[in-house]
């Protein structure tokens, strides 16, 4: 999955939002939400900061194009090789996540399209809720992938789980 951080430059927040709407057809979220257009997603991870991702895209190409389109309005940094991304789905997913995620994932508090940056087992993660399946996407730093995987598999063990590559 191609990924890049996007940080609006001083005085350029509106220009950055306008450029992204013009090129990708999405309205940039101002809070911790995600906005998708096809395979391209902009997830709010902080004030005037987003993580842009593109499923199935060539990482170098996607980031270079994003940087070119946002030149002078945002700082774009390639994160494609920086993250382990897992997609979790199943009826007991919330029970698994409840063992380490400090954010309330109850459907009333955290809905499809919501994003949270938080700590799981001392590891900084980005959690996106994709749909009411429920399906969650969790991104963790690559250097912490082993630790995160250890927490995830230990937490899921009592329910059973399948792992597949996408």
């Amino acid at each position, binding site marked *: 999955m191609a990924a890049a951080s996007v940080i609006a430059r*001083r005085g350029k927040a509106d220009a950055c939002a306008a450029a992204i709407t013009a090129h990708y057809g999405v309205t940039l979220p101002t809070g911790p939400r995600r906005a998708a257009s096809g395979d391209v997603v902009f997830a709010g991870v902080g004030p005037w900061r987003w993580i842009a991702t593109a499923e199935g895209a060539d990482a170098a190409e996607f980031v270079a194009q994003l940087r070119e389109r946002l030149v002078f309005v945002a700082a774009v940094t390639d994160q494609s090789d920086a993250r382990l991304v897992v997609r979790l789905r199943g009826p007991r997913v919330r029970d698994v996540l409840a063992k380490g995620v*400090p954010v309330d994932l109850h459907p009333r508090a955290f809905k499809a399209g919501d994003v949270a*940056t938080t700590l799981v087992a001392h590891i900084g993660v980005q959690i996106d809720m994709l749909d009411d399946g429920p399906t969650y996407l969790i991104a963790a730093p690559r250097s912490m992938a082993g630790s995160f995987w250890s927490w995830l598999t230990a937490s899921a063990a009592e329910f059973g789980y399948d792992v597949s590559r996408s």
Partner: protein
Amino acid sequence: MRINCPYCGPRGNEEFAYLGDATVRRPDPAAEDAAAQFYEYVYLRDNPAGSHRELWYHGGGCRSWLVVTRNIRTHEISDVAFADAGDKP
């Protein structure tokens, strides 16, 4: 203790780092009494028994600097705001 981050919502204090007094301002180094002002700025702090404005960093979340108004006697938090007033860049 939970801090209601203006970007992320309520989060546990393990996600935050405490810096200190949010009311002190760096003095003008060109001022005539700069040395005395810097001595006060660097070393001297009030220790109020009550409401205190303090800087917290949400490093485990949105990476924002926040100004938290907290009652030091009760830990009751009455206000949380972006340190830069959430200024749109």
